[in-house]
């Protein structure tokens, strides 16, 4: 398998798909992302169906602070750019730059997660807006929480990769792993675009 890859001139220009294993990971991961899209669609559909059912509890217009959501959006968008830059560094065989961009991505992601935990805590403590307050509350925590869980999972994944391969340089084994983790991170960002539109902006604006 790997014997078919010409490595005599240096790192192949597409290290993430130079080996058969890399190609399979790439293909399988996109298949998974197609399925994830549908998973999130069910949560979005549920939220949209139930968002009027506030049962005299707080509505989203009562809860949402737009400035906080704006900061969270900026953090996640920027982290998407830094992971793109990490992948370009990988293709150029610049291991140090890739690690630095990936760590920046992790830090931005952790900041995002911190804000989200603060937000949930704030809702529960200051507004008595718990998971079982209303149908809207359940749908809200399920959808935003599912996204938050994805962020937490993605962060642990990237951190494990960064520690495991901290000294190895870019190889044909770890290049596909970093690439796929990067794709996962972008997908999280894509979902957030719809969350801030559907959950937060729509909640405030109409």
């Amino acid at each position, binding site marked *: 398998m790997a014997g078919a890859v010409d490595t005599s001139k240096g790192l192949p220009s597409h290290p993430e798909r130079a080996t058969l294993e890399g190609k399979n990971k790439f293909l399988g991961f996109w298949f998974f992302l197609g399925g994830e899209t549908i998973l999130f669609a069910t949560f979005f559909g549920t939220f949209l169906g139930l968002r009027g059912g506030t049962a005299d509890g707080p509505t989203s217009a009562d809860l949402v602070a737009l400035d906080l959501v704006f900061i969270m959006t900026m953090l996640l968008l920027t982290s*998407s750019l830094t992971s793109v830059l990490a992948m370009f560094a990988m293709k150029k065989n610049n291991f140090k730059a890739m690690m630095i961009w990936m760590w920046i991505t992790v830090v931005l992601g952790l900041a995002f997660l911190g804000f989200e935990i603060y937000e949930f805590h704030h809702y529960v403590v200051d507004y008595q807006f718990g998971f079982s307050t209303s149908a809207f509350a359940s749908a809200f925590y399920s959808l935003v929480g599912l996204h938050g869980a994805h962020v937490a999972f993605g962060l642990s994944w990237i951190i494990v990769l960064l520690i495991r391969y901290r000294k190895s340089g870019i190889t044909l084994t770890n290049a596909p792993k970093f690439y796929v983790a990067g794709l996962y991170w972008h997908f999280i960002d894509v979902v957030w675009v719809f969350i801030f539109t559907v959950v937060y902006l729509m909640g405030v604006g109409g």
Partner: protein
Amino acid sequence: MADNLSQSFDKSAMTEEERRHIKKEIRKQIVVFALMIFLTLMSFMAVATDVVPRSFAIPFIFILAVIQFALQLFFFMHMKDKDHGWANAFMISGIFITVPTIAALMLLLGVNKI
């Protein structure tokens, strides 16, 4: 031959042309990023201020979200690249199923509101 799987490289096999191409690509990604920030600002502005009429605000932010969705997929996730045929096939079938899923859930749950 399995050895070179865990071997790091001291140089890249990229040709000059590929290098130029990647430079151009990075510049493009940064422009796309600026565009995404701009779209996000617009949608927050549309809701926070009265620049966009109230009745049009919701469709407006949805259009912006869909544009941003496309930018992310095509540029950041490279779906525009030529070798992404299967990636496109998987993702598009996912999105294709998404639409009736959301519509059905909205109708089912929304109509039977308690």
